[in-house]
């Protein structure tokens, strides 16, 4: 009904074209030095936060739970991947760069380890209702931090340096597409509906045969995997890891992005992660007020629009195109911000 095969393929082709166009334009701009190093840095950071925010939306927006340990999963991914890339190397295979393969494998390994941690912590935690889950994930994040501080392989409190600067726009963009596509395709399936039904009413969901624990774990594991991936990208972006990087405040920043963008809106998460990463980078005066403004935003948004600014509304390139072509009499609006093309998957 909502999507049949034909319209799905149409939309997929449209979105792929948009993404490709966006990718080529940005790559060209980087190559032609229109975007200097400062801007590409911000761009990378934006993509890293987008990945983390979209994955958090899976547990927060769709599953309706409140995990406060997202940064913990990121740190697992970051350290795992960093340890792998600093210790191993893969020789180049013809045109394929060994470095790239290694980075890809390390990132996947980071994601998988984060996912395993997510399942291990999720199995007991998810038996508990809402606020206990929040506190247990928070506790988990802190335990991870203490562990990282105290074991040798992560460099302990001194931190871990010498990590290669592998994260570029290409990788960031690739993983962004991955997380957006995965989340979108999962959410619009029987499994995704089951996840959403848990958010809506656990007792009713159970009564129609939804295995609560299973779907909580699925959402949790998926979110943890991509959190690990974004952690890996983060590690190879800043090249130096210290335990303080992934504190409670980082988990909260992710939460602000998700809540502000809309609980259950992928495009909302993308937009708010983009805005909330760029603004403090560009406006230094804002940076010092950042946390105060974030906290006020949290409270105000919750009181006046508890589902977040976009609610569960999704931007859609296909819808835009349809609008433009159907209503010819109106002056067709050009897609105002072309960049959002990649962010709209429906």
């Amino acid at each position, binding site marked *: 009904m909502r999507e049949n095969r034909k319209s799905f393929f149409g939309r997929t082709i449209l979105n792929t074209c948009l993404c490709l166009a966006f990718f080529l334009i940005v790559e060209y701009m980087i190559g032609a030095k229109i975007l200097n190093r400062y801007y590409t840095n911000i761009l990378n950071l934006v993509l890293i936060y987008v990945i983390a925010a979209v994955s958090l939306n899976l547990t927060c927006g769709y599953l309706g739970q409140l995990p406060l340990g997202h940064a913990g999963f990121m740190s697992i991914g970051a350290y795992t991947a960093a340890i792998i890339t600093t210790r191993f190397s893969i020789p180049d295979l013809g045109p394929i760069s060994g470095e790239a393969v290694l980075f890809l494998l390390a990132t996947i390994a980071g994601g998988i380890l984060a996912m395993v941690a997510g399942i291990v912590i999720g199995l007991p935690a998810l038996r508990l209702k809402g606020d206990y889950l929040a506190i247990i994930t928070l506790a988990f994040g802190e335990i991870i931090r203490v562990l990282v501080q105290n074991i040798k392989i992560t460099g302990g409190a001194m931190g871990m340096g010498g990590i290669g600067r592998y994260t570029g726009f290409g990788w960031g963009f690739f993983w962004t597409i991955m997380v957006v596509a995965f989340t979108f395709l999962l959410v619009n399936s029987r499994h995704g509906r089951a996840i959403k039904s848990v958010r*809506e009413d656990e007792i009713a969901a159970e009564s129609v045969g939804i295995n609560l624990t299973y779907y909580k774990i699925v959402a949790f594991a998926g979110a943890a995997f991509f959190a690990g991936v974004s952690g890996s990208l983060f590690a190879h972006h800043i090249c130096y890891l210290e335990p303080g990087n992934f504190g409670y405040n980082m988990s909260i920043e992710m939460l602000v992005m998700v809540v502000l963008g809309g609980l259950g809106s992928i495009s909302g998460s993308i937009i708010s992660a983009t805005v909330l990463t760029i603004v403090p980078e560009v406006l230094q005066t804002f940076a010092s007020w950042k946390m105060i403004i974030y906290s006020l935003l949290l409270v105000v948004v919750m009181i006046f629009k508890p589902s977040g600014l976009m609610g*569960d509304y999704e931007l859609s390139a296909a819808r835009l195109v349809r609008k433009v072509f159907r209503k010819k009499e109106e002056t067709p609006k050009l897609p105002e911000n072309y960049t959002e093309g990649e962010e709209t998957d429906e």
Partner: protein
Amino acid sequence: MNRKQERSPLVPVPSGFLMREEDVDKTPVLEIRHLGVDFGGLVAVEDFNMALGRTEIAGLIGPNGAGKTTVFNLLTNEIEPTRGIIMIDGYDTRGRKPHEICRMGVARTFQNIRLFRNMTVLENVKIGLHNEMKYSIGEAVLRLPRYWDNESISDMRALELLSFFNMQDMAGWKAGSLPYGAQRRLEIVRALATNPSLLLLDEPAAGMNPSETVELMNNIRRIRDEFSIAILLIEHDMNLVMGVCDGIVVLNYGKIIAKGSPEDIMSDPVVIEAYLGKADQ
């Protein structure tokens, strides 16, 4: 209306329960023996026994606080029983999770409607069809053929179920925005989507006016006949209970005080006392 003639008489079966004639030779869809539950020190349900034939409509009635909804919660294992056995189609339900009970063939509605309010009517029904669909997460994310086949079949099935209550035009609405009566009907459709052999209705007529209640009565009978399933309902509206039920169980203070056909129950002095108090008061 000559409802008496529509009803098949209840006859005793070897297990000691009464059953409709056409269900006598079949495994009862539900059999409860010596069911009991304590909350803290309080005995909420005690020595609850009943059996339900495959196509029987039974009523569970009793004053407020008698433990009727508790019995439903015990049947779906939302609350674990302290004592006794519940058997669905002859299978013991002990130690099963509520979602497993649903797969065994028990579906229910709730006293305070519990819909997935922010999801569409169609999605609500499709969540009911969740276990009818067979495709893995991988198949979903890669959009393999099984995804499309299952989804399109379940779309049709969901609309077919909605059309049972003439609700197919509302498929795109948000469930929370439906009018009250439609929400109650949607809950029933969602329950039917799980392909149950026993449907539990918790006060289906609550908040309905008399004409809606009559419609509901017809619908309950239609559900039984077309899906050929058993229905157990909790209801305060005696017209509905007496009009639609084959057998009735009366509960008071967690205990069964009377069992039988509507006619027996209506004239039972114990029941009258439980509802109205002692005559000399």
